[in-house]
C-alpha cells in the first residue's frame, strides 16, 4: 500500500475502509542473518537501511514493548545540524540531509517541518561561541546565520528582550532545522522495513545474548532462542542492561530528562527556540501545544519520570524568556531515559564479541540522529567497517583518550553533558 493524494481522496470517498496495518505481526523464525535488539527509532532505521542499502532482508527487530513506546516517543521532536566538534558535526550534517529526503524515501508523512532553530544568546561570551559555531557549520556546507538583537526582535517579537539578568542579544539561526512528528518517524521506518521483509517482533524482550567461543550465536527471548550470526544492540535507555547480558560494562550512566506540553494554543511560536539561559528549548506542535524542556534531573534514573525541582526550573525559565505564555496551562509531562556518555557523544561500533554490535550513548541527542544512526549502523553491521560519517563514534575512545568529542567541555562527567 502506497500513500498518495489520490489514495487519501479515494479512501475519503469510500469510508476509509481500504487502509491496512502498516506492518505485519509475524511469528519469530528460528534463525535470522541479523537480529536488532530494540524497536525504537534507531533500531527500526537500522533494519530499514540494512534492507534498503545492503539487501539484508532476513532480519528481525526485537522490541520488548510496542513500536513508538520508548524514547522515540519521549523527546521534543527537534531536528538540527548545528554541532561544531569534528566527528559529531559531519554526522549530524549527514543526518539532516537524510531527514530532508526521508518522507519521499519512506513514502510516509513524518510531518517534517523545517521551521528553523534559533539559539538565543544573552551575553558577549555566548555570542562569541555562537559565531564560532556558525562559522564551523558554514565551513562544512550547512547553513547558519547570526541575528542581531534587532533582527531577532523583528522575527520573534514575543520574547522578553530586557530581562534584567539575561537580556537577549541575538541568536544563531539555522533555517534548515526544525521538527518532525516523532512517532510517525518510528512508524515510517517500521513500515519501510516491513515492506522489505524485515520481521518486527513486538512484545518480544531479549532476556539473554548467547555467545560461543567469543562469537555471538543468537538471543534468548520468552518466545525461544532466536539464532543470528549478527546481533545489533540499539536499546538506548537500557543499553547497560542489554550489554550486561553479553558481559560488557559500558561507559554509560542513565539519567532522566523531562519534557512538557501545554494545552493547545493558537500559533504563537513559529520556530524552535532555545535559550542559553536555563538551557530552555521550546517549539509549538502542529496541534498547538507548546513542547519544551530543559536540563537533566541530574541524578541516575530509569524511572521515566522526573522530580519537581526541574519542573520548577523549566517553568521559571519559560516565564523569564517568554512571559506571554504564563497563562498557558501545562497539559502533561514525561521523562525519557538518556544514555549519558563521558563525553556527551554517541557510540556506533563493534564490540569485543564477534558479531555483536553496539549503538548507544545518544545522551539527549538521539532523535535528530535517527536516520543517520540507522544508516551508519547498518553499514557497520553489513560490512564490518564504520560508515565515514560515524567513524568517530568509537567505543575505545574513552580508554585511549583519542578522538573524544566533549561537547560541553566538562571532561569525563556523564551527567554534565
Amino acid at each position, binding site marked *: 500500500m502506497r500513500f498518495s493524494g489520490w489514495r487519501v481522496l479515494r479512501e475519503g470517498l469510500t469510508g476509509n475502509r481500504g487502509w491496512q496495518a502498516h506492518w505485519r505481526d509475524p511469528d519469530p523464525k528460528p534463525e535470522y542473518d541479523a537480529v536488532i535488539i530494540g524497536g525504537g527509532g534507531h533500531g527500526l532505521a537500522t533494519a530499514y537501511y540494512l534492507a534498503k542499502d545492503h539487501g539484508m532482508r532476513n532480519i528481525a527487530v526485537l522490541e520488548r514493548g510496542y513500536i513508538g513506546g520508548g524514547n522515540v516517543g519521549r523527546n521534543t521532536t527537534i531536528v538540527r545540524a548545528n554541532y561544531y566538534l569534528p566527528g559529531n558535526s559531519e554526522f549530524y550534517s549527514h543526518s539532516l540531509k537524510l531527514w530532508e529526503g526521508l518522507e519521499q524515501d519512506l513514502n510516509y508523512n513524518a510531518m517534517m517541518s523545517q521551521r528553523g532553530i534559533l539559539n538565543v544568546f544573552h551575553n558577549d561570551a555566548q555570542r562569541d561561541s555562537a559565531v564560532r559555531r556558525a562559522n564551523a557549520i558554514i565551513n562544512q556546507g550547512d547553513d547558519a546565520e547570526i541575528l542581531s538583537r534587532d533582527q531577532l526582535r523583528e522575527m520573534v517579537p514575543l520574547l522578553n528582550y530586557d530581562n534584567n539578568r539575561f537580556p537577549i542579544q541575538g541568536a544563531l539561526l539555522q533555517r534548515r532545522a526544525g521538527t518532525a512528528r516523532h512517532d510517525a518517524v518510528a512508524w515510517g521506518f517500521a513500515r519501510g522495513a516491513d515492506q522489505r521483509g524485515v520481521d518486527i517482533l513486538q512484545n518480544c524482550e531479549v532476556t539473554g545474548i548467547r555467545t560461543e567461543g567469543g562469537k555471538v550465536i543468537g538471543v534468548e527471548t520468552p518466545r525461544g532462542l532466536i539464532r543470528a550470526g549478527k546481533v545489533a544492540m540499539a536499546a538506548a535507555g537500557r543499553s547497560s542492561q542489554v550489554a550486561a547480558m553479553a558481559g560488557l560494562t559500558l*561507559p554509560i*550512566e542513565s539519567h532522566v530528562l523531562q519534557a512538557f506540553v501545554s494545552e493547545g494554543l493558537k500559533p504563537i511560536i513559529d520556530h524552535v527556540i532555545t535559550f542559553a539561559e536555563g538551557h530552555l528549548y521550546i517549539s509549538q506542535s502542529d496541534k498547538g501545544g507548546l513542547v519544551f524542556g530543559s536540563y537533566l534531573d*541530574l541524578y541516575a534514573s530509569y524511572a521515566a519520570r522526573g522530580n519537581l525541582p526541574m519542573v520548577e526550573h523549566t517553568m521559571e525559565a519559560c516565564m523569564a524568556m517568554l512571559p506571554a505564555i504564563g497563562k498557558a496551562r501545562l497539559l502533561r509531562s514525561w521523562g525519557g531515559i538518556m544514555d549519558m556518555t563521558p563525553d556527551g557523544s554517541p557510540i556506533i561500533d563493534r564490540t569485543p564479541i564477534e558479531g555483536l554490535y553496539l549503538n548507544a550513548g545518544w545522551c539527549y541527542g538521539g532523535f535528530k540522529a535517527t536516520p543517520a544512526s540507522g544508516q551508519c549502523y547498518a553499514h557497520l553491521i553489513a560490512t564490518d567497517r564504520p560508515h565515514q560519517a560515524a567513524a568517530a563514534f568509537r567505543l575505545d575512545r*574513552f580508554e585511549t583518550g583519542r578522538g573524544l568529542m566533549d561537547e560541553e567541555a566538562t571532561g569525563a562527567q556523564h551527567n554534565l553533558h
Partner: protein
Amino acid sequence: MRITCPLCGERDRREFYYRGAVLEAPEEGAPLEVWHAHVHLRLNPAGPLEEWWYHQHGCGSWIRVQRDTSNHEMLAAAPAATGEAG
C-alpha cells in the same frame, strides 16, 4: 524526591548536590585499564544504587545513600564516614 539526611532528617532534594555512584578509587599507580574502568565505565544498575549526596543547603555533610534508580525510592542513608549506607 526527599532524602533522609542522617543528621537533619527527611529533607527536600533541592537541598542536596548529587555526586554520583560510590566508586572505589584505584591506587595511584594502578594500570591504565583499571583507571579507565574507574573514570568511564559504570555498572549503571536499574535498581538499588549506592551513591554520594552532599547536603549543600543543610548541614554540609556528605552522605552515602542507597536509592532505587527504577523508582527513586530511598532505601538507606548514612554519614559518609561510616562507609556503609545501611
